[in-house]
């Protein structure tokens, strides 16, 4: 056997030097991406569900000779906390993704500069929850009950049509929901029940749900993929809290091309909760002018039409046209449950804690 002479100390030194070099290079390369003269960089902080088409972003970059750097920062709450904690020395120029359940936290902390975008005139008033335009509405999505169509067809029973139905013996052990303390659709569903039954009545309703063997899990992924029977995960329960867009996605991302989704959303009055997402220019950002252009761009039809297929949310700009799939498979609720962002901010902690005490423990 050939014996290779080897000096571990020397090699250790090499390894350390090499590692420092590699890490230093990797550290430098992305931050100092070659800025061609005249190209400005804009950093946009987003939550981890953000997505967009390459082409749409490219268009904006070409038009404004800019480079957009996206910074995914965890789920909505985590991303917002990061933005708040870096307030004095912001990580980015623009923050996208705060929704109406977190809006008051963002506004109270004063992380945004107001910006009255000219495109705002095209946006219906109902979405403008912040009248001072610190946070501008971009999109909305409705948290609605979804059901497994095959299950109800086979059993010959009609799917539930109201919140009240869910507490009936007919639908015993069929529903899976998310924990409002850990999941954003879970919180939306809790708020739906509070809007429907009021502060005095919602806990009684939940007790009835509990008697009817509702299953509560911590996250949407577990509820939808592990417990829900209409998804590919082969769960046991045919009713789940999800989004009104989910059935359309079951068609788009079907394993084998299908013409009819296997699931359907319940969109009767008062059973859905609308989540509106906002964008804002971060106070102390370096690139105000370009940031304004980007915010305008997010509200124009070009970007708005791209969102549904990328992020499962819908445009607030009525001029944006919806893709054919959505025209065909999307049912939008006419009347959603509503609680103002201020009321949510004021009561969130109390509602969550009383709910947890009464229902979980």
């Amino acid at each position: 056997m050939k014996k290779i002479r080897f000096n571990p100390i020397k090699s250790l030194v090499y390894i350390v030097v090499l590692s420092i070099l590699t890490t230093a290079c990797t550290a430098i390369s992305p931050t100092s991406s070659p800025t061609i003269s005249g190209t400005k960089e804009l950093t946009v902080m987003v939550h981890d569900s953000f997505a967009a088409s390459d082409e749409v972003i490219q268009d904006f970059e070409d038009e404004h000779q800019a480079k957009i750097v996206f910074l995914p920062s965890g789920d909505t709450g985590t991303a917002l906390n990061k933005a708040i904690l870096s307030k004095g020395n912001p990580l980015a120029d623009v923050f996208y993704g705060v929704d109406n359940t977190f809006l008051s936290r963002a506004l109270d902390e004063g992380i945004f500069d107001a910006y009255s975008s000219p495109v705002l005139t095209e946006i219906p008033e109902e979405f403008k929850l912040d009248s001072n335009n610190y946070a501008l509405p971009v999109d909305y999505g409705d948290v609605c009950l979804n059901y497994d169509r095959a299950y109800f067809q086979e059993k010959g029973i009609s799917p539930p049509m109201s919140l009240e139905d869910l507490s009936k013996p007919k639908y015993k052990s069929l529903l899976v929901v998310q924990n409002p303390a850990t999941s954003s659709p879970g919180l939306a569903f809790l708020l739906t029940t509070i809007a429907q039954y009021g502060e005095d009545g919602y806990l009684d309703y939940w007790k009835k749900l509990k008697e009817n063997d509702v299953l509560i899990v911590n996250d949407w992924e577990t509820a939808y993929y592990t417990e829900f029977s209409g998804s590919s995960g082969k769960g046991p329960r045919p009713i789940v809290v999800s989004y009104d867009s989910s059935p359309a996605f079951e068609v788009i991302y079907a394993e084998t091309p299908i013409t009819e989704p296997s699931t359907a959303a319940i969109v009767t009055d008062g059973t859905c909760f609308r989540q509106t997402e906002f964008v804002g220019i971060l106070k102390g950002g370096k690139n105000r002018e370009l940031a304004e252009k980007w915010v305008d761009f997010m509200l124009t039809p070009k970007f708005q039409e791209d969102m549904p297929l990328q992020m499962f949310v819908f445009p607030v700009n009525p001029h944006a046209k919806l893709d054919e799939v959505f025209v065909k498979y999307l049912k939008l609720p006419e009347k959603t449950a509503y609680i103002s962002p201020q009321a949510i901010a004021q009561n969130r902690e109390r509602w969550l804690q009383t709910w947890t005490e009464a229902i979980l423990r």
Partner: protein
Amino acid sequence: MRNIIHQDWFIVAALWTAPVVFLSIFYFYPLGSILITSFSRGEGSLVSPFYEMLSSPSIQNIFCFTVWQATLSTILTLIVGLPGAYLIARYNFRGKSLLLALTSIPFVLPTLVVASAFSALLGPRGWINLALMGLFDLSHPPIQFVNTFWAILVAHVFYNTTIILRSVGDFWSHLDPRQGQAGQVLGANRLQTLFHITLPLLMPAILASAMLVFIFDFTSFGVILVLGGPRYATLEVEIYYQTISLFNLPLAAALSVLQLVCTLGFMVFYTRLSAKVSRPFTLRPRRYTQSRLISWKSRTFAALYITFLIAFLVTPLIALAARSFTRLEPNRGQLTPVQTGFTLDYYKELTGNRRQSLFYAPPSTAIAVSLTYALITIILSLSLGFPASLALVRERGKGINRVFDPLIMLPLGTSAITLGLGFIIALSHPPLDLRKSVLLIPLAHTLVAFPFVVRSLTPALLSIKPRLRQAASVMGASPVQVLRHIDLPLTGRALLVAAAFAFTISLGEFGATALIYRPEYPTLPVMIYRYLSQPGGLNYGQALALSTILMVITGAGMLAIERFRIADIGEF
């Protein structure tokens, strides 16, 4: 004599320099910053969040539950792991490295994927429940698994058995079997040998790995959320809830401090205990300590244990991999033609960018990114952990080691969300403005891997008799030569074990990575979560396909590390 002591002190201090600088910048400074910021947001005095914490009955419950589940999980992990460590240490058999590689795969898997593997087996419509229902003609699934306390324990054992197998198994393989044989010659029975000779000698390694397992379980987050369900919460879960859902930063900081104080307490306890139990002895190369499975007793034992291990650790993995090749439109009645069969669609779909998405990355990119981070983590954590371990064993329990020994474990006991936000506040000014840097990810991984490296190396280094080093010194060897010719060869295997830990920690890490990754450079777990967060059969399939790729990469990486040999490192 005085001269030698002086020199020792100097060497210990020099060895500590790099690890201490690293920990100060990337751990203590961010942690201190976030704690100060959080407490200063409180309206009352500094005491009030602590008062709120200590007087809340629900937090008292959470605290007790956290300790209770971690203790039980650690004991169960030891019960499952120790017989395997014995098998690995004492016997040579075909497929041993493969078995070791397979058992380390669970360690890297995302919790959501593990949960879906378990529910494929044990869920209400899982194979086992369906089989039992068919067998005994039951109308309801007999096994309740998801959202139970058992699910938490089983998942913890599933994740952490590899820690016991690797560190105790490696250490055990260097124990001289003749000591036990001598005891038996003198009339001790097997049990007496085990309890009076083998276990006491093994104690340092058992304690070290049990401590790691315990701290992992103590700070458990994903397993509790996904498998335990909403009725269970650990301190770590409560910190996340207070930080994100309620934005009660002072209380979250108080909880983080409580978690840290507990970790520190466990570590001081561990250090005391381990100083009592560890004694130097002569390490034997493995070729002298291992035998083949010849007797029927050893064969039966090996067969039973390996079957159990495969049933427990490997079946869920196979279920996942199988599902990623199965076309299945389950329980959708007559709405669409149901097709079941073999498919490569999910893998094909991975390589195409159907949505023309900006953030699309082919699997090859994710693999390359994951491996690069893992490599940097191995290099960084070994080059920091080796000197730290050397320093620790040089003047055990004396001087600065008394302070540093418990401190190095703290990163493991720190809440990920607290430290993640700490990075954002602290590392915000040049030259340390790393908030947007990809370097932050391997640095965070190194913080987790570093304690593992130190705890894997110290038992091996401790067992080296000081007389060996002294003899070398007396003969005129310089400290560097002592390191080269005594410490390094004698800890070769332990170095590989440490590298393996760093590799798996980096490959599987998700919590910190999700906070700081750059979309151009996603890791495999980041991509898996991205697919799992969207409805649709193809997305689900792609998440499972990527998980399968992650499993294969982990297994292959572990086999490669196992085979790694430079000079006599790893030979011993």
